[in-house]
């Protein structure tokens, strides 16, 4: 399948799409938190790309970031110090976790990237929080206009909303291919697809998704169905762990990553004034664990577990991700209450200790599969 291959390739050379965009003389802005109102960036004909890490160690970053800081953040910072992100025309950060607030300082102080901006993101979605965040989004738009030296019109915003909503609906359709028995795409493929969406112009991504959906039904090489699993956690920016699961008899059919379902689950209201609608969508979406309304995320996970007919769940907690470390035992209890076996794993972004994780995943899948 050509589309699937494209998504895979996109992740093996993550900067190619952005560099291609740059070669047309158009700017690229990096972001790290899925609470960044990307539509506003896209409306300015700027490519928003999620900054991700890699598995190559964090030697450069370790000189400045302590070993008890988020290993994903350290990996991203390492990539920036190495110059991988020198093509960025700007970088947007927010206070959506304690690591992030300080990462703003780290990027501003130690990297060469120009135009570093901070969006103040409330942790509640009350009427007052919405009003505050709307003003933040207005300021962000004005900052973009000043930085780029051109206005962003309402019709640009509306167009961006439309394109983004289409992407979200298509991604949901792709996800639903995994409701089938056996699932029509693997968990690793699903992650490649959602991750590639964070770094590809959405119009192009939409075409590829449409192509994929046309290609799938004619596919004869369906993956074998293993133990149907839901995976949950903060960020997952590579497919290593999912590949391990699927190599030892698991089928990842649902996820709760901020680079997975939480990235695209909710739409922007197209009937409302565009900036207001954008701001509202982000504060009201399936929340990340830093939000006061964190129990809404548990509900989302429980719904996903039912919708995708899962047999067990694995909660992955990225080392030093405080908000998820606090949520994990609560989420575990919620899933256990559904009668699902749950495995709780802490992982380092660099994948050190991967052998131990693999053994535990294998034993867990064997245990669940044996009961089946």
């Amino acid at each position, binding site marked *: 399948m050509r589309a699937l291959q494209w998504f895979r390739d996109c992740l093996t050379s993550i900067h190619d799409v952005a560099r291609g965009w740059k070669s047309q003389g158009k700017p690229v802005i990096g972001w790290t938190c899925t609470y960044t109102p990307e539509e506003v960036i896209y409306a300015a004909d700027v490519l928003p790309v999620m900054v991700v890490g890699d598995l190559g160690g964090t030697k450069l970053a370790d*000189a*400045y*970031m*302590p070993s*008890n*800081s*988020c290993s994903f953040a350290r990996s991203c910072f390492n990539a920036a110090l190495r110059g991988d992100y020198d093509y960025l025309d700007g970088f947007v950060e927010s*206070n959506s*976790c*304690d*690591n992030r*607030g*300080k*990462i*703003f*300082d*780290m990027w501003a*102080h130690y990297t060469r990237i120009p135009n570093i901006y*901070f969006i*103040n993101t*409330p*942790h*509640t979605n*009350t009427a*007052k*929080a919405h009003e*505050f965040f709307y*003003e933040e989004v207005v300021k962000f738009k004005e900052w973009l206009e000043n930085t780029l030296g051109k206005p962003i019109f309402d019709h640009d915003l509306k167009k961006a909303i439309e394109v983004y909503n289409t992407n979200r609906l298509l991604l949901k359709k792709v996800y639903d291919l995994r409701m089938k028995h056996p699932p029509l795409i693997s968990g690793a493929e699903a992650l490649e697809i959602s991750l590639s969406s964070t770094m590809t112009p959405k119009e192009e991504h939409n075409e590829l998704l449409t192509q994929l959906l046309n290609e799938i039904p004619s596919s004869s090489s369906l993956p074998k169905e293993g133990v149907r699993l839901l995976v949950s956690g903060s960020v997952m920016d590579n497919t290593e762990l999912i590949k391990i699961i699927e190599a030892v008899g698991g089928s990842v059919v649902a996820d709760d990553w901020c680079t997975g379902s939480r990235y695209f689950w909710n739409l922007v209201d197209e009937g409302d004034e565009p900036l207001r609608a954008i701001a509202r969508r982000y504060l009201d979406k399936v929340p990340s*664990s*830093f939000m*006061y309304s*964190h129990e809404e995320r548990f509900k989302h996970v429980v719904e996903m577990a039912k919708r995708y007919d899962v047999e067990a769940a694995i909660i992955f*907690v990225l*080392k*030093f991700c*405080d*908000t998820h*470390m*606090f*949520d*994990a*035992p*609560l989420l*575990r209890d919620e899933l256990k209450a559904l009668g699902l076996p749950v495995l*709780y794993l*802490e992982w380092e972004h660099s994948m050190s200790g991967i052998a131990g994780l693999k053994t535990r995943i294998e034993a867990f899948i064997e245990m669940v599969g044996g009961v089946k």
Partner: protein
Amino acid sequence: MSERGLQTLRGFYRNYIKKYYEDAHRAKAEKRPVAWVTSTFPIETLQAMDIFPVWPENFASVCAARQASVALCERAEKEGFSRDLCSYSRCVLGSMFGEEKDLPEGGLPKPDFLVTTTCACDTHLKWFQVASRMYKAPLFLLDVPYNISGADSNSLEKAHIEFYVSQLEELFSSLEKQTGTRLDKNKLRDTVALSNQTSELWMEIQDYRRNIPCPMDARDAFSAVFFMLCIPSAQLAVDFYTTLRNEVRERAKNKVGVIENEKFRLIWDNLPLWFNLKIFEYLNSLGAVVVAETFSHVWAGNLDPSKPFESLARKYLPNFANASVKRKIDMVLSLAKDFSVHGIILPANWGCRMMSIGETIVREVVYKKLGVPSLIIDVDSSDWRNYNEAQVKDRFETFFETLNRKQ
């Protein structure tokens, strides 16, 4: 060295901390409203409503000082809470899972409700969400904008103050519903005025530490700061700080110092090692004295009783825990100058991102601007498993050798 401690602080634990926990348990027994609260929450609001504030963070430090914290942390870990989490939170969560009779000071009275804020860290909110679920008690959150420009209380953004004030209004109406008592505006004014008086006395005490030799050590400061943090709006706080101020003033006048020959005057950032406050005596033995803690300089605020809400916003919003590292750099620079400091100790707390990331920037900028070196050490406030004493002492000694060469 300990005889150099202040008279006023003798028996502090027995006379004040122990009594505070007895009061808390009594309030609970008498069915008065009891709320759990975290630092950087405007505690004055609770005191104005006669709600008894219970401080889990203080309890964790008590457990650490009594060498009871690690066993409690382990209990929380057994329930699935990661060992990399804040040791304060693990210690208190652990205390919730076990027998109350085993706990220092009988543990914490159960909350009728909980209040917290995003003004210091995510951990406060997340930890209290867990407690709120466990006790089936409501949690009220003061959602605070992040001070990314590093503004001080006079230069805060208007939108930030407005967002804060509007939430205080909502908070009071929630507290009114929760307790069935109306907020008495006069009482709020008095509470704020009392807190302001406590702040002024505390800052006066800190100012005497500019003297050479320094009349007050970190160990005493980390005990005495209790009132500033936990119950600033109390006559008891004003009385205690008045006595303390008099003693410190007297010492400063007579040039009585913690140590006689001060070789190194230091700033101590963040939290102490509550399980090992003797480390400050060890520093004294090497000719070093901590003359200022950032922790002692973040809890004061000029409160205007005629504008209680706005004053509280201006007091709490600029806390460096909620700000770009610029805010901490500004504070360290001014302390280093005002207190004739030779070196800065930057303890990175294992379970705390906010106190760990960015310390290299502080070290770099302060050195560039003032030529004052910093030492970053890996520690933990309450979990001694994350602390290697031999290694830390070794690093202190090397650091002092460097300072010696400089002088």
